[in-house]
């Protein structure tokens, strides 16, 4: 789960990490008022779930409160398109108004869980302000790492190693080490999947400050952080995905094509998407329907398909293991009873309780195209989507 920069900075601040003075505004008038309160130059920053804001015009500096008002007015209510967003961009409903900083140096600091060592790793670099992946590719030697023993926690010596490694001055070593220790505390306390301060700046008066911050949370751990779950801004997500998730159709990801896909299992769902693409078609979504114990989720998935104006055919491919094929078949019938579905339907069933599932569908009055295997289901779905 993602949150906005202003929320991330509030969290950093809560854990003792210095951030610029600033507040969030929803209107241009509020932005003006905040700028006047802060005094001097301010940065007006679009609050969206995407990186690359600077280049896309989502971060501007205002010399006066009036200018802040004007800039905020230009941003609010529009959509920002960056290299990380879809073509339609993401809505700007809030701007962060912050005291502009005089910056001497731009550094980088982050924590993730490293899949290889299976430990959290803190990464630090002198090459802040850039995308870290670019740094990793061009100058990997500029990224310093400290692996954090989960039992021992982050140690002061690790902080010193990274701080000296970034060529900080002697006076900055201790504050940097404290900042890193606090950052790990946040990472751990809130079950983060990423905390990133980029850039971590050295100000003109030699202090360390988180000028920009990104905090992502591990979805699987949200059950123990109801306070974090509340922070999610659904306006930043695809509306069909939000709709699907509200209906309990998790693991639904909107794509650009016209074949509504219902598959059980993530790997199989990806493989079916691959097959559809190879057959000359294009999936409208990724969906792992998961373990189906009742017909509701199947009905709700059909609701999502019929809400998507792009969908021209629906494809169901189920290989029952945990999921029971007969329940899925009943769900398909239930969906056709409850909803007005006029789209061609291609179905392929296999696995646990398959005979019963096939019989249930065959005995119903639903029109559907039966497929024998998953190459067949992909091809027939592509043909059906083209024909309607």
């Amino acid at each position, binding site marked *: 789960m993602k949150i906005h920069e202003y929320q991330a900075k509030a969290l950093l601040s809560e854990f003792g990490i210095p951030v610029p003075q600033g507040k969030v505004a929803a209107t241009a008038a509020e932005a003006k008022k905040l700028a006047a309160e802060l005094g001097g130059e301010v940065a007006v920053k679009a609050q969206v779930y995407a990186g690359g804001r600077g280049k896309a015009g989502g971060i501007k500096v205002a010399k006066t409160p009036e200018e802040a008002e004007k800039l905020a007015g230009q941003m609010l209510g529009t959509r920002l398109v960056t290299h*990380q967003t879809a073509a339609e961009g993401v809505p700007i409903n809030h701007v962060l108004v912050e005291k502009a900083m005089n910056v001497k140096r731009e550094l980088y600091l982050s924590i993730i*869980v490293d*899949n*290889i060592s*299976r*430990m*959290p790793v803190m990464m630090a670099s002198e090459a802040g302000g850039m995308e870290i*992946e670019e740094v990793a590719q061009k100058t990997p030697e500029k990224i310093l790492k400290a692996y954090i*023993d*989960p*039992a021992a926690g982050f140690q002061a010596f690790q902080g010193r190693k990274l701080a000296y490694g970034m060529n900080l001055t002697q006076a900055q070593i201790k504050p940097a080490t404290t900042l890193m220790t606090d950052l790990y505390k946040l990472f*751990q306390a809130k*079950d983060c*999947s990423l905390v990133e301060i980029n850039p971590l700046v050295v100000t003109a008066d030699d202090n360390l400050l988180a000028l920009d911050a990104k905090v992502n949370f*591990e*979805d*699987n*751990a949200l*059950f*123990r952080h109801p306070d974090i779950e509340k922070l999610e801004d659904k306006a930043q997500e695809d509306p069909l995905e939000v709709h699907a998730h509200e209906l309990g159709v998790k*693991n639904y*990801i909107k*794509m650009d094509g016209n074949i509504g896909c219902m*598959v*059980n*299992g*993530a*790997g*199989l*769902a*990806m*493989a079916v*998407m*691959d*097959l*559809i*693409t*190879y057959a000359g078609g294009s*999936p409208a979504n*990724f969906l*792992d329907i998961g*373990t189906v*114990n009742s017909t509701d989720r199947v009905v709700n998935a059909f609701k999502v398909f019929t809400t998507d104006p792009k969908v021209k055919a629906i494809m169901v491919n189920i*290989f*029952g*293991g*945990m999921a029971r094929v007969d329940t899925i078949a009943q769900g398909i019938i239930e969906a056709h009873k409850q909803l007005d579905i006029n789209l061609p339907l291609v179905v392929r069933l*296999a*696995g*646990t309780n398959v005979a019963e599932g096939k019989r249930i569908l065959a005995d119903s009055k639903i029109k559907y195209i039966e497929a024998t*295997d*998953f*190459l067949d289901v992909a091809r027939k779905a592509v043909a059906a989507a083209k024909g309607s």
Partner: protein
Amino acid sequence: MSILIDNNTRLLVQGITGGEGSFHTQRCMEYGTKVVAGMTPGKGGTQTFGVNVYNTIVQAVKETGANVSMVFVPPAFAADAIMEATDAGMPLVVCITEGIPVSDMVTVHHYLKGKNTRLIGPNCPGLISPGKCKVGIMAGEIHLPGNIGVVSRSGTLTYEAVAQLTSLGIGQSTCVGIGGDPLPGSSFVDILQLFNEDKDTKAVVMIGEIGGIAEQDAAQYIKAKMKKPVVVFVAGATAPPGRRMGHAGAIISGSSGRAQDKMAALEAAGATIAPSPAEIGLTMKRVLAR
């Protein structure tokens, strides 16, 4: 022969009294797996399907000689369940549970260090040695005893691959689902090693997906050590970057974790790439005919 589980497997089920736990315990018993114990704290002394339920694993192991544990415990308690089995000296723990927080798995991996327990999963379908033993949630009837090892990050895509093999008359020695999480207990390399050493496994089907570098690690192992042919498919060639495709570990971050790069690395290491997921069985048939 087979790897990890066979006729000598004595299975304990953690979470045997829950909905999924009890459903799949019955399916395993029907397949012929010897289920010797169940474990649910607070239900010790009762019986489920004629199997004694215990409050602690130590006691269950002592009284039944259980040597494999299958975990169906809900995500919030699953890490604790894996560590309890480890503490009881269980040689093999198979965790089916999906949705365990990564930080919990960091703790589990730390706990497992230096201990003699092998973990498979979490977020996996388990494993099966056809005709002998099933410790998992896969449909037993699609399998056929034979000489092909199968190892996969995906559950249902494995069923597809197995169904293709079986329909061509190509049987399997053991099929292992290592799971879709970013921090799996056993990696491709761990399982490939076992297949490499198993004299009744003649070739291996490996099914990867986007995200991480487990397939690249496997490519290195295959190049350096593998004595048997490996047929590979990697799912997600058409998946968009930056999105988590159902599995917690299936995400392309920037330019890393792409299916194309994984397949290229595996091909360069000497593995045979199945051109589509529908041709995994046929590709193996061609490789065996060589």
